[in-house]
């Protein structure tokens, strides 16, 4: 991906994503190390920093194999006095939670920014967790931009605070901050700090119990100081009449919704409106002054009632007679993301006003759902198709223990090959659990390359060590496709250029798998054979690893374009097509549609030229319409 705007001249007005603005803040600050693991909605932060690094020659930037390692890389650099940033999606912080807690105990020597991009409404995630709670739990302050508009400023303030306090800081964004484009005015680039030095001090950096106990006392003292210091943060402010008995508190992006809702209710400038962008710990002194004499507060925030609850505690501690409305009181829905209309209604109800009238028209006919699909030509389609076909021939009942990546899309019919899907790497652990207790079905744990390196390895070693009979299917397309094709240890490159390729087969061998088979995903014949062998082995009580390798068709197409290799388009010979429906009903490439008489037709605009349907068709009715270049086939079928 290309992000030329991240390097726009100081003073430029740049219309860009919140994530790119955060990347710019890191460059402006002079961050020396940036690490992360891709995950929507966070990925563009590291991508944009990497883009800048290519031009500037700094900072050091990497996609790590998972969030925990990424966290540690940046944390280590910050201990060594180099300002650092680590970025991940909300669930990534679960993976990195262990070092997060320790980092608060040890502190750091330079700025250490932990960006957590939360995903309310679960646009691309399995849950709606609010990582501000990690801040409370781990004693790590949380800054959250008031909308995409403030992404750059909040990131800069967070970096500054972290450096001054020698303490990690979480910058919490949400999808509507990270992925909203807004206007930003960029600042000067400070000189980066790229070289650090390690100051030996085990009493600080080595958390054996005796040291940790001391650090714990210091941490508690620090936490109280933070609340005081944040009370004068320029990110927090108040507007509207001080004398009003009513106050609306907007935290993070909630502030934008609150402000627009108040305007819509005709209350902007009539009630006190407080903007909080340092949500954890609550800036108590600042709020204490604001809350005295108020009767009612309404809190608007994205996610859990984190500010609301802290506010109630504060009010209790101060002995105020303040009634607090928000998510706990049911005025603002707990699930999903904020919406202006819901916020306006909630504020109105909380203040005893009638909610503003709205007219929403709903159509009387409805559009059928359109779930996302594997692309036409996706290497995974043939593999899933083969699994179903071969298993049914062998009369095997399968449990598809699924995982996170493009192959998650195999959940949809007709492939229906993801029965469980819980978290990164979960396919192997869950699969082993099934294999020990379910006797009438065989477990197939499917996991993509990036996820395999991310959290699959311990699960695989454990399955071998504890003899879990199952088939582990590693879907290796050489890229982290779902999040935008970031490189990973299977790619042969990293963010800085060529890199070691880490082989899934060698890992499987070292882990102690009973057998390993490799097939090329774009050869259905090979896949069928490999699947049959792997299923036989697994069914006989072995731990068998099947690696299906073939490039993501999108990267293959991009490579072909770059190298000037033309792709074929496939077509259906009408006279040979027997309307068996297999290609569009069972294999279901989105490029293949049915005609009136049930015969198949290929949409040349959607066909990527993968050629798998030609093998699927039992009547040899599908053929390339144009010449199939050798280089194209080699690209698809390379690397056995």
């Amino acid at each position, binding site marked *: 991906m290309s992000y030329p705007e991240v390097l726009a001249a100081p003073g430029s*007005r740049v*219309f860009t*994503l919140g994530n790119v603005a955060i990347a710019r803040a890191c460059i402006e600050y002079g961050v020396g190390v940036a690490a992360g693991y891709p995950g*929507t*909605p966070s*990925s563009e932060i590291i991508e944009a920093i990497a883009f800048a690094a290519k031009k500037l020659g700094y900072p050091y930037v990497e996609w790590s194999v998972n969030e925990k390692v990424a966290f540690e890389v940046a944390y280590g650099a910050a201990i060594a006095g180099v300002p650092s940033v680590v970025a991940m999606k909300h669930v990534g912080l679960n993976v990195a939670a262990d070092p997060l807690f320790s980092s608060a105990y040890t502190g750091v020597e330079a700025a250490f920014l932990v960006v957590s991009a939360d995903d309310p409404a679960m*646009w*691309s995630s399995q849950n709606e967790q609010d990582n501000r709670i990690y801040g409370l739990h781990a004693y790590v302050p949380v800054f959250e931009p008031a*909308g*995409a*508009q403030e992404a750059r400023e909040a990131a800069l303030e967070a970096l500054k605070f972290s450096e001054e306090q020698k303490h990690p800081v979480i910058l919490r964004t949400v*999808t*509507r901050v990270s*992925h*909203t*484009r*807004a*206007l930003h005015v960029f600042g000067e680039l400070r000189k980066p700090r790229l070289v650090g030095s390690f100051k030996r001090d085990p009493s600080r950096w080595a958390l054996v119990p005796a040291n940790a106990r001391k650090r714990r006392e210091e941490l508690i003292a620090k936490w109280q100081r933070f609340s005081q210091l944040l009370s004068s943060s320029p990110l927090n402010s108040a507007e509207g009449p001080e004398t009003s008995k009513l106050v609306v508190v907007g935290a993070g*992006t909630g502030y*934008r*919704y609150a*402000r*627009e809702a108040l305007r819509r209710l005709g209350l902007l400038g009539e009630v006190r409106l407080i903007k909080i962008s340092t949500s954890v710990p609550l800036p108590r002194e600042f709020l204490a002054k604001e809350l005295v004499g108020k009767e009612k507060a309404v809190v608007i925030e994205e996610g859990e009632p984190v500010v609301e609850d802290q506010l109630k505690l504060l009010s209790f501690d101060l002995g105020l007679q303040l009634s607090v409305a928000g998510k706990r009181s049911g005025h603002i829905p707990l699930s999903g*993301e*904020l*919406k*202006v*209309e819901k916020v306006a209604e909630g504020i109105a109800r909380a203040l005893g006003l009638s909610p503003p009238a*709205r*007219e*929403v*028209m*709903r*159509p*009387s*006919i*409805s*559009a*059928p*759902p*359109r*779930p*996302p*699909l*594997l*692309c036409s030509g996706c290497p995974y389609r043939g593999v899933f198709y083969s699994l179903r076909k071969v298993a049914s021939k062998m009369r095997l009942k399968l449990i598809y223990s699924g995982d996170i990546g*493009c192959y998650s*899309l195999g959940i*949809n*019919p*007709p492939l229906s090959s993801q029965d469980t899907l819980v978290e990164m790497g979960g396919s192997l652990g869950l699969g082993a659990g099934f294999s020990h207790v379910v006797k009438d079905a065989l477990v197939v744990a499917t996991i993509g390359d990036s996820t395999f390196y991310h959290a699959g390895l311990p699960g695989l070693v454990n399955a071998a060590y504890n003899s879990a009979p199952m088939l582990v299917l590693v879907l290796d397309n050489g890229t982290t496709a*779902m*999040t*935008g094709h970031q490189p990973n240890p299977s790619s042969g490159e990293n963010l800085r250029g060529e890199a070691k390729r880490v082989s899934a087969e060698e890992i499987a061998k070292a882990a102690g798998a009973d057998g390993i088979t490799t097939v090329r995903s774009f050869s259905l014949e090979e896949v069928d054979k490999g699947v049959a062998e792997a299923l036989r082995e697994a069914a006989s009580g072995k731990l068998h690893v099947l690696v299906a390798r073939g490039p993501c068709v999108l990267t293959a197409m991009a490579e072909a374009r770059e190298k000037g290799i033309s792709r074929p388009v496939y077509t259906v010979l009408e006279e040979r097509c027997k309307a068996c429906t297999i290609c569009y009903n069972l294999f*279901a490439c*989105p490029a293949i*549609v049915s005609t009136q008489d049930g015969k198949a037709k290929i949409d040349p*605009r959607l066909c990527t030229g993968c050629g798998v349907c030609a093998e699927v068709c039992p009547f040899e009715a599908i053929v390339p319409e144009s010449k199939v270049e050798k280089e194209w086939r080699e690209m698809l079928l390379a690397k056995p």
Partner: protein
Amino acid sequence: MQSLNVIVTGVGGQGILTLARIIGEAAAASGLGALVAETHGLSQRGGSVVVHVRLGEAEAPLVPEGEGDLMISMELLEALRYSSYMRRGGEVVTDKLIIKPYGSRPPSAEEIVAELRSMGLNVYAVEAASIAEALGDVRAANVVLLGYAIARTQLGKLLKAESVEALLRRGKGAETNVKAFKLGMSAGKER
């Protein structure tokens, strides 16, 4: 200041994010407030995609339901799906295209257009994909619709055709895109 709520929708891969971004950039370049709320990830794999574009003084990124002034849709089923975002009297510029979701029996183009009209929407159904295909690149359908919307709807009061064109000239596939944009504009004027 004038403001406008725009819903941009279609099927993942049709160039919806690009379309929304051009509107936002053109607005920002002419000093108008703009917010463009995208969704990435899952929805881009051939799924349903909706982008919220708010021009003018909006602060929050999402268009409230029932308050969309303009919809630009690259596919009819998606126009139908997000129609509740529109206010009565709102304008809908949509491709006539229907992309059938797997295993479904969707309503016909005529039914959908009639339904949208019965909701009090001003519907302009355009053969954008065909126009773009005739130019040799179906991916330019998004810009055809944009040209149409600027020539025909309220969007033209906020955005100057020249500023959009200038942006297109700087991007990828500039030549085709500018042509597609102009064809869209003239289709919009003709009506």
